């Protein structure tokens, strides 16, 4: 599994793991669901004489074929839905006492794994955009890191973003305190 694949340092421990909010998944799954019911609606509308959609052919004669094609369509959508689930399930933010690891599954065989040490954390802010996100309490966590590249890490659709921000800041503060309390060797602070 994933955790065994990440090479942690000897004194590094995982503080929390966060995955995207379930409502984000539901929103993404609504697309294949709509596509699944669309042929049924079209069939009902085409077969309704009131709308003027009478078909020139007898649908009943083709019902086995239509059922077969609909089942095939559902199968394709089923596979598509599980592709969405894969992207959701494998997107993960891991906070350890030393760094943040952000894994973004963009598609099958397309992963982006980014990590930065907590002492490089420069700015951290959360963005909760919209009524739904406010109601279900999810949002985007942006982390800016110090460095010549001024990298920015963005975790979209994270549940309880304020608590997540507080946890990250707490871990960063703890790490900086430990770093400061470390006994210094002569010539260390050049």
């Amino acid at each position, binding site marked *: 599994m*994933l955790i065994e*694949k990440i090479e942690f340092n000897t004194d590094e421990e995982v503080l929390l793991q966060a995955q995207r909010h379930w409502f984000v998944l539901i929103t993404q799954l609504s697309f294949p669901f709509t596509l699944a019911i669309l042929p049924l609606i079209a069939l009902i509308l085409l077969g309704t004489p009131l709308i003027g959609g009478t078909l020139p052919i007898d649908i009943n*004669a083709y019902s*086995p074929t239509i059922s077969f094609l609909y*089942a*095939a369509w559902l199968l394709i959508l*089923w596979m598509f839905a599980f592709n969405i689930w894969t992207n959701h399930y*494998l997107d993960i933010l891991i906070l350890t006492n030393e760094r943040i690891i952000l894994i973004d599954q963009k598609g099958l065989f397309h992963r982006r794994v980014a990590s930065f040490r907590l002492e490089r954390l420069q700015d951290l802010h959360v963005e909760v955009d919209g009524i739904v996100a406010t109601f279900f309490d999810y949002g985007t966590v942006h982390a800016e890191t110090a460095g010549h590249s001024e990298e920015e890490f963005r975790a979209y659709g994270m549940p309880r973003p304020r608590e997540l921000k507080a946890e990250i800041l707490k871990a960063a503060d703890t790490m900086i305190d430990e770093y400061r309390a470390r006994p210094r060797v002569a010539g260390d602070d050049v």
Partner: protein
Amino acid sequence: MIFAASFPTLLGLLFFTLLFLFTIYSCMLGYHWFTYGTSVHKSRLSLSIYLAGAGILFLIMGIILYTLSIVPYAY
């Protein structure tokens, strides 16, 4: 009429193409879930639901295909 008569053959071709694609796709999904997933239980549950749903759809398609192969169309 020739087109109508070749329907079960076309559907059969579609069925076996889908079966082939589904098998490959299942292996790809299984590889991702069990390699990069966070919990074995969750990965197993995902695979079970995925296979069960697809199994029902393949069963429906198989029954229709079998019925079409033994009962000729009355056009």
